[in-house]
């Protein structure tokens, strides 16, 4: 009887229910946005790793996060190739230099990644398909989200980086993440020609690939033993945990969007509660009548909870659709990788249901006032 009754109450006053749906939709959308941004920041920090082929990552013990990794001698990485479990050990080199061909004479800082184009360590198809351009002397590939401040990014344009002329060979799609306002890829040879003092002796990231079927954790432990304490080996899950914790706890990001998330949930509870308790007070005589003919408080509470849950569930679908649109907009506006994953969706659904139940519980105090003797 509770479901049917809840349904009757909800469909009795359609205008009011439509309004309720709109309210809960906004509340859920709000949770979507805050949660999306909360996760987008660590995802932005993971952008390069998500497009890199490796099972284990060798880094310096000074490693902070991807764009500030410290450096270690190349020999540490090449030594890994002696392990029978290791298929490939590929170095990645980072450097930041002035892009002296910016708009209006500005010299924005360019984040550069040097790597072996033959290695396949970077997976985006727009990179692997442009290997020919990368191996040309003094030629770079530029990330497609590099900011307009860098001027037109088009193949064939010659630009000055530090004191050397480089030709833009094309652009690739990966994203600049938190590496900087502009990112470029170079072959190892071009990297060392542009930065002769930097050279290729000190590596920033060592991407290690293992034979299929070997246990990464076991190999990581073994390799860690053989390499010195000044380097560190991450498995992929360890790396994800490290980067996520860096961006959520070491920066203000976690607190900013975490507090936003908390307030969104409270606001959501307020909205649903307002809707449900208005319904309760409007239907008070009816509830009292039900009590009078023998329905217990439990049955009435169940009805209110069902109402609350159905409004939340009904509002969830449209909120999901609206969130997809809004995420797209945020992605374009902020260049943050705000994505609607299954995990987020499940989290938001759970939060919506919790909001609904809490609101229903809060609305029940009104229900207890339903005294049959008072109503008539």
């Amino acid at each position, binding site marked *: 009887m509770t479901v049917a009754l809840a349904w009757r109450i909800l469909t009795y006053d359609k205008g009011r229910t439509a*309004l309720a749906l*709109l*309210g809960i939709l*906004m*509340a859920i*959308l*709000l949770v979507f*946005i*805050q949660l999306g*941004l909360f996760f987008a920041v660590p995802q932005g920090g993971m952008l390069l790793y998500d497009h890199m082929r490796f099972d284990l990552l060798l880094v310096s013990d*000074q490693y*902070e996060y991807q764009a*500030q990794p410290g450096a270690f001698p190349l020999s540490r990485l090449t030594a890994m190739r002696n392990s029978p479990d290791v298929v490939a050990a590929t170095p990645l080199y980072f450097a*930041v230099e*002035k892009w*002296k061909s*910016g708009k209006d*004479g*500005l*010299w*924005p*800082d360019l984040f550069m990644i040097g790597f072996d184009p033959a290695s396949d360590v970077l997976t985006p198809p727009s990179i692997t398909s442009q290997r020919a351009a990368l191996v040309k002397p003094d030629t770079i590939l530029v990330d497609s989200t590099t*900011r307009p*401040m860098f001027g037109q990014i088009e193949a064939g344009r010659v630009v000055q980086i530090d004191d050397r002329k480089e030709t833009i060979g094309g652009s690739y799609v990966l994203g600049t993440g938190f590496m900087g*306002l502009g990112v470029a890829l170079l072959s190892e040879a071009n990297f060392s020609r542009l930065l002769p003092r930097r050279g290729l002796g000190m590596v920033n990231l060592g991407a290690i690939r293992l034979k299929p079927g070997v246990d990464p954790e076991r190999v990581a432990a073994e390799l860690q033993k053989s390499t010195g304490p000044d380097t560190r080996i991450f498995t992929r899950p360890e790396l994800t945990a490290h980067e996520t914790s860096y961006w959520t706890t*070491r*920066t*203000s990001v976690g*607190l*900013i969007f975490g*507090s*936003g998330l908390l*307030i*969104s949930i*409270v*606001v959501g509870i*307020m*909205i649903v509660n*307002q*809707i449900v*308790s*208005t319904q309760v007070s409007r239907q008070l005589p009816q509830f009292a009548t039900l009590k009078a003919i023998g329905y217990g408080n439990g049955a009435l509470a169940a009805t209110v909870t069902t109402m609350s849950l159905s409004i939340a569930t009904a509002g969830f679908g449209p909120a999901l659709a609206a969130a997809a649109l*809004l995420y797209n907009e*945020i992605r374009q*506006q*902020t*260049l*943050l990788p705000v994505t609607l994953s299954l995990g987020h969706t499940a989290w938001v659904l759970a939060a919506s249901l919790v909001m609904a139940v809490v609101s229903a519980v809060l609305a029940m105090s009104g229900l207890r006032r339903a005294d049959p003797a008072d109503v008539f």
Partner: protein
Amino acid sequence: MAVAFSLSGRAGSHPVPLAWRSLTAHKWRLVRSSAGIGFAVLLMLMQLGFQQAFFDAALQVLRGLDGDIFLQSIHKYQFATQAPFSYGLLTTAKNVPGVASARPLYADWYNLFWKNPRDGKVYLVRGFAFEPDKPVFLFPEVNDQRDKLAADGVVLVDRRGRRFLGMNRDISQTEINGVKVEIAGKFALGPDFVSDGTVIMSGRTFASLLHGTLGNPPGVALGVIKLAAGADPSAVQRELRKALPATIAVLTKAQLLAFERAFQADVSSAGPIFAIGTIVGFVVGLLISYQITFTEISDLLPQYATLKAIGYPTVFLLRVVLEQAALNGVAGWIPAVLLSLGLYRLIGQIALLPMQMSLGIIFVSLGLTVGMCLLSAVIAVGRVVRADPAEVF
């Protein structure tokens, strides 16, 4: 149930505070409605606060510079980037009529590695330097301690630097770039979105930490110029442009701040992110406020109809509804502002962000609150207009 209408006065000549009366008639409902609106307002206040804190953090060092006109390389696209110019140009600037002093600010964001003296871990920090006898900052704590900086290898540290740096602890010495430094005192600045903490020192110490004791003198990040008494700023600015090479930008303090603000607004995601949050808070508040006004109007419909029946014009009732909506908004806004004061303080301390209630935030949030309540009342008010005395009873 009856609302205590007191109609001793006639409409227009001696108005009864109807909006106020109906607002306060149900105390419990008032609490609930102001809680609902209040939380939507709180959401907007937090977003506005974060947005302002973001810009304040990015601008606070520039705001804290004691100068009228500033020199920097034209290639500099933001404050936190290395594009130094040679010290000699400050001498040129000093000789321009109307210039009282031209002092160097040295700065580095990417090459100073601070060792946390407690756990030995090394972190990148931001460093500022000036000549101790030529102060450039307005920060009293820095200026009071500048004599200590005259000795080599002495630094001041930011007690509001992120905790993992250990700058907030009781420390007397550590290493920067592997060189031993003495910590002579502290100041309060706080991190921004580039740097976790700040070290301030003399130009000599700065040079030796970056280039060794025999290295070249450091380039100037920013020339800080003070005008002689009575000098015309724009005339001096023109003269400086003439005297200096075209690679140097000559900016007033307002221009320097506007340049940095424009960069932050253009490049960072903070603007759109917090704007979206504020807009969603507004829409949520609109819905909550609509619900409240709609329910109130429904409950008071007999009273409104009665007023109509005894001759009050519809315009009068409209005004009552709008007034009441605005009062509802203010009733939610006041506790939200009070609560946000506490939250700003708490978050400001935990996240080391300069979260501060400003007149700007007060006015914008009040405007948005009253706006959303009035808008929702306008949508909901149709029922009062249609209220027919004959139908109600």
